[in-house]
């Protein structure tokens, strides 16, 4: 009850000097806005990453270029994977299928229509491994790949944008200046791993490597295990086999990396954590700056209200009552600033969302409570010194103050 009354008193003294109160908490407003935006963006990107990788099968192992030689070695990624590695891995007992994959951005043309797309060169297993089906025509066959045919399968969106509702299979398109025949259109899928495959066009690996990519290496190989429960041991087997394929002697480091979906997700988690540290540091600094603003204004307020403090002491306020009153005043101004900050941060992330169209953001109840808590804590910490000063005033001196 006493506590509530003191809160009320604090609120009424803040109301009496509204403009100054707003100025005092400006720093906190921006600080909290920063915290709320940071958390909303982080939440959004984490959910996004998790959502994307959920589309990858649990039975997949990814083999990539580059070395896994510990943290110290940051040598440039040297290309080493070839389609014959994929074939060799496919021979293993425990491996069901393999798909070598190489990806570039390219232009696709159909008469006057021109689109920028992701061009994926791969083999016939790509569709089966990912459970990705054609809605019209067919997907790649072994024959397409072996003979390096100039055929392509269009992602859902690509087909719609190029052809609208008209039949597409059999049409001719030009990709990177080379003519291709459309043999199929894929289903609407959205994200598969890191990319939106509806924006993607698939061509045979051989055709891509010889005519468009200008090198014989592939970017990664997706390996589908027979048993997803034995992924770890199969991964080791894949590693051993790759070392043999690449004639790496004992003691030498791998020139490739092998990862499961889980490990990639973990890596993203690590990245998100680093982002979080950076964002929270920025937010923390702005809160500290906000706190200094509050300290400043509270000191002015204590000086201005010296006589009032004297009167309160004369009518029976204990030093602890005065301390509490000014602490709460700082806390209340800070929490109000926090409230405004949350609205501001929410507005900012919404604008960001609409302008960039890239990421979704989420302001969770948890982040709101956390932000308000931080604001209150900042305010109380910032009010500590001014409140202490107020509580140590000598009543007689304070009453004499002009």
């Amino acid at each position, binding site marked *: 009850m006493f506590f509530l*009354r003191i809160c009320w008193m604090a609120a009424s003294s803040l109301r009496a000097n509204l403009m100054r109160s707003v100025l005092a908490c400006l720093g906190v407003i921006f600080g909290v806005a920063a915290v709320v935006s940071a958390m909303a963006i982080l939440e959004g990107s984490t959910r996004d990453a998790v959502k994307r990788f959920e589309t990858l099968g649990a039975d997949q192992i990814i083999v990539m270029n580059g070395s896994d030689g510990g943290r110290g070695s940051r040598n440039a990624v040297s290309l080493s994977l070839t389609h014959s590695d994929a074939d060799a891995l496919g021979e293993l007992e425990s491996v069901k299928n393999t798909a070598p994959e190489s990806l570039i951005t390219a232009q696709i043309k159909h008469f006057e229509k021109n689109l920028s797309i992701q061009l994926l060169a791969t083999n016939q297993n790509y569709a089966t491994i990912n459970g990705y089906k054609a809605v019209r025509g067919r997907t790649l066959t072994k024959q397409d790949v072996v003979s390096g045919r100039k055929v392509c399968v269009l992602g859902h969106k690509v087909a719609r944008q190029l052809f609208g509702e008209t039949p597409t299979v059999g049409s001719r398109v030009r990709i990177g200046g080379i003519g291709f025949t459309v043999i199929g259109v894929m289903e609407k899928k959205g994200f598969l791993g890191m990319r939106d495959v509806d924006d993607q066009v698939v061509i045979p690996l051989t055709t891509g490597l010889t005519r468009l990519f200008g090198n014989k290496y592939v970017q990664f190989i997706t390996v589908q295990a027979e048993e997803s429960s034995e992924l770890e041991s199969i991964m080791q087997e894949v590693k051993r086999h790759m070392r043999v394929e690449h004639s790496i002697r004992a003691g030498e480091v791998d020139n490739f990396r092998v990862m499961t979906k889980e490990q990639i997700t973990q890596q993203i988690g690590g990245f998100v954590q680093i982002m979080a540290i950076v964002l929270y540091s920025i937010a923390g600094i702005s809160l500290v700056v906000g706190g200094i603003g509050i300290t400043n204004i509270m000191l002015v307020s204590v000086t201005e209200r010296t006589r*009032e403090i004297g*009167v309160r*002491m*004369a*009518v*029976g306020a204990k030093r602890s009552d005065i301390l509490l009153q000014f602490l709460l005043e700082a806390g209340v101004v800070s929490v109000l600033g926090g409230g405004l900050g949350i609205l501001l941060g929410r507005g900012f992330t919404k604008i960001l969302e609409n302008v960039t169209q890239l990421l979704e953001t989420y302001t969770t109840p948890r982040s709101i409570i956390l932000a308000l808590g931080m604001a209150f804590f900042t305010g109380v910490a910032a009010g500590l010194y001014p409140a202490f000063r107020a509580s140590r005033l000598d009543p007689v001196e304070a*009453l004499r103050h002009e």
Partner: protein
Amino acid sequence: MIELRQLRKLYKMGDSIVHALDGADLDIGAGEFVSLTGASGSGKSTMMHLIGCLDRPTSGTYKLDGLAVNRMSDRQLAMVRNHHIGFVFQTFNLINRTSAVDNVAVPLIYSRKTSTRAAAMAALDKVGLTPRASHKPSELSGGERQRVAIARAIVNEPKLILADEPTGNLDTRTGEQIMAIFHQLHAAGTTIILVTHEMDVAAQAKRIIRMRDGKIVADEMLDEHKRTALQAEARDARYPVGSPT
């Protein structure tokens, strides 16, 4: 009720020492109405602050109702002020941003009372300000402000009221209204100590104490005879002999 023995208050001003109170001995019984007069700087306010437990003496003892106040902690002194003492100041000292009734309720908040409004309204009623309860100090006249201040001083029903020049900022007629309230409080049994340098105000008390240079130089009970003499003296001071009437 009040027992002061060799009470001293010194202030160091650089090299020199100011004896604001220089060894005062004084007893005031419960229910007395005492006025304290003396020239400016004679130590009246210092005496009030000590009696009111707002300040500590440099030396000497002070017993309030038998309790050795000079040995109490800040916290205990705050509680004594809250429960037993009411202050009335020359400059009213109200909190300007809140209403009259909220000002009156301030002491109740610090005594952790759960319902403050009814008691604050009752105190306002005693000074005849019920209709002004929701006005802010800036919307009140000087006399009304002082009545709010008195209501604040009596809201916790203290035994002792200390008023330091309560009529100093008011015209004579308004001052008389304020004095009428003090008379009522006195009649109800409250002990009142009133600092003033207006002799006709001082003469309204039952006992008058004069100070000079931090010392009590006179302490006398006022009977009807002395009172009339003092009031005549006060009139003469205001309208000196030879001035046009």
